């Protein structure tokens, strides 16, 4: 049988399977027959409202499309909540949905303490701050430094040292920084379609936050260009113009596209225009000569020490490996690692770093390369800085905030709405 026909069979069978999944949950006995029938379709995957029967529509909730009873036909049943959402035809509707935001294995499940379920997206989110002027990313949460925390550049209460993180690190009351990743056009040398508007807005958003993040870590890929051509430097220039909208220090990780793409290795290379543009734009202004380095940060009152290790996977060498092993072995209260490729990658650093990441004590690994926002264990994938999205979170950035009670809270912001669209905590 041809592949064409096989794929159609698979498509057709998949569609059938969806319509008969095990998520049907009849909960609304006692209401009239129409309502009862409509309620029985809750959590039934659907493509069109006609599949849902009378009194129900195909609408988005729990992170996908399911049949849901229109609230106006009666009260929602036990364990159900009436919410506004969008039907498959784009109409705004109100439907009864599971109050836990879950349909089978999909949706929120059990949210961590302090978070609630967004019943439409099916994601656990932190409550939005009340009374904000624009709903923007400007309010700390309970357990985090309060709104009176000084901005970078202002003096702490009674302190004589200004909290500040510069190219060589610094001292702060509580760590609070932003993470941005992957900013490139869809096509090679396609400077005309560089996502300047997106990355500029991201840096504007970070600059406008109060308190303002003390520094920014970028996870790589600022361009998509031929290493021997002139477009790489042009795209780096566009990136730096956007980056200039944030007044603090930016620690930039080398991405694979700054080395020519794929698993290229720029260690020892001097003639790669893209690599040189990266070094000139994001490394040398920090007074550094290598694309890998340590940023030491400590508490103003000496309660803790931290290090940020900037790793260059696409300029991997024995020297960098030795440096990284040595830095990971030095004790600090907190350790943050930033590199371009996620764990498990076959990048030039992948094999050498895998055992280090298994044995080393670190708090958070920040990566990009994948053009989405994701987190898994201690890894944050932050790749939505303007590159073509491959996931279902919009372009944006993350913040990492030290919690008063210990650990760090990571929040993901949508650059358009300024809303928190995801969060998690690491010890």
């Amino acid at each position: 049988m041809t592949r064409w026909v096989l794929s159609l069979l698979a498509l057709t069978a998949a569609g059938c399977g969806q319509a008969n999944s095990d998520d049907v949950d009849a909960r609304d006995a006692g209401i009239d027959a129409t309502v009862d029938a409509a309620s029985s379709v809750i959590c039934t995957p659907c493509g069109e409202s006609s599949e849902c029967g009378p009194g129900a529509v195909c609408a988005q909730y729990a992170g996908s499309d399911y049949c849901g009873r229109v609230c106006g036909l009666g009260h929602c049943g036990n364990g159900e909540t009436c919410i506004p959402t969008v039907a498959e035809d784009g109409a705004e509707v109100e439907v009864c949905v599971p109050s836990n935001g879950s349909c089978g294995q999909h949706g929120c499940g059990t949210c961590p303490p302090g978070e609630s379920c967004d019943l439409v997206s099916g994601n656990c989110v932190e409550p939005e701050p009340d009374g904000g002027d624009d709903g923007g990313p400007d309010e700390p949460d309970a357990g985090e430094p309060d709104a009176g925390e000084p901005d970078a550049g202002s003096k702490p209460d009674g302190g004589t040292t200004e909290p500040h993180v510069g190219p060589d690190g610094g001292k702060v009351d509580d760590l609070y920084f932003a993470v941005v990743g992957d900013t490139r056009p869809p096509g090679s040398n396609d400077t005309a379609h560089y996502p300047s508007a997106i990355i500029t807005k991201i840096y504007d958003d970070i600059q406008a936050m109060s308190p303002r993040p003390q520094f920014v870590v970028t996870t790589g890929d600022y361009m998509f260009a031929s290493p021997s051509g002139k477009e790489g430097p042009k795209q780096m220039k566009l990136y730096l113009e956007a980056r200039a909208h944030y007044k603090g220090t930016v620690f930039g990780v080398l991405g694979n596209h700054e080395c020519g793409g794929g698993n290229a290795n720029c260690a020892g290379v001097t003639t790669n225009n893209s690599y040189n543009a990266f070094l000139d734009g994001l490394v040398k202004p920090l007074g550094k000569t290598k694309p890998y380095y340590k940023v030491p940060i400590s508490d103003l009152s000496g309660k803790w020490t931290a290090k940020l290790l900037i790793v260059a996977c696409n300029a991997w060498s024995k020297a960098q490996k030795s440096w990284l092993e040595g830095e990971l072995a030095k004790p600090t209260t907190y350790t943050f690692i930033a590199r371009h490729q996620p764990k498990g990658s076959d990048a030039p650093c992948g094999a050498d770093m895998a055992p280090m990441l298994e044995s080393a004590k670190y708090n958070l690994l920040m990566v990009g390369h994948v053009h989405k926002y994701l987190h898994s264990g201690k890894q944050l994938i932050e790749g939505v800085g303007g590159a073509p999205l491959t996931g279902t979170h919009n372009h944006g950035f993350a913040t990492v905030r030290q919690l008063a009670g210990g650990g760090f809270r990571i929040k993901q912001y949508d650059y358009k709405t300024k809303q928190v669209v995801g969060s998690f905590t690491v010890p």
Partner: protein
Amino acid sequence: MSAKKLLELPLIAALALACQARGGPEDGAASAEVALPAPIATATPRCVPATLVAQRGTPTLDGQLDQPVWHAARATDAFVDPRHAAPVPHTEARASFDADALFIALYVADDDMRSTDRVRVEFGPDLGIEASPDRQLRCRAGTEGSCAALGVQAAFSVDGDVDNAEQEDEEWVVTLRVPWKTLAPAGRPGELPVALRREDIAGGRAKQTAWNRGCGAIRLE
């Protein structure tokens, strides 16, 4: 259409009909797609007008977007899920033309490429072209289903491995050449209708996004 395919059709049609009877999510489209890509306008009456401007230029058909003609081309807005406002994996299209043909480039950001993924270009109800990241091209024009017979050509650029979830895929691009003799036998128009759609299979479900809903157009400038 080959005799082998004709023999296979009843089996697929039966399965599609069974699915329809059980309220499957893709019922209308699935049965219509059995042999060839279906016109999308018939399944989605809501119409959001959009125009893709095609400028004069002849790109090399190599699946790459790194040519000046594609850099100069204006890209469509990102494809959207017509039913939701939520972000979706990025897809965009560009177009150019010369005396002999229309060229369309489709960029598809995809971190898990599957051979069942596809993009479709529909020029009204009479001509449809479908491409997948495994470099397969399928065409439909009336009763004709051979891309070669229609003169439709494609080139692919695939960054990643198809049907391998372990790999870090990034994107795939297909560039199409559609001769005017197929597209507009009576003469090249100033504008022609087009619908662009992407379909991914993720988690066993078809995720569809589109640039428009059947009333888009390519305008030649």
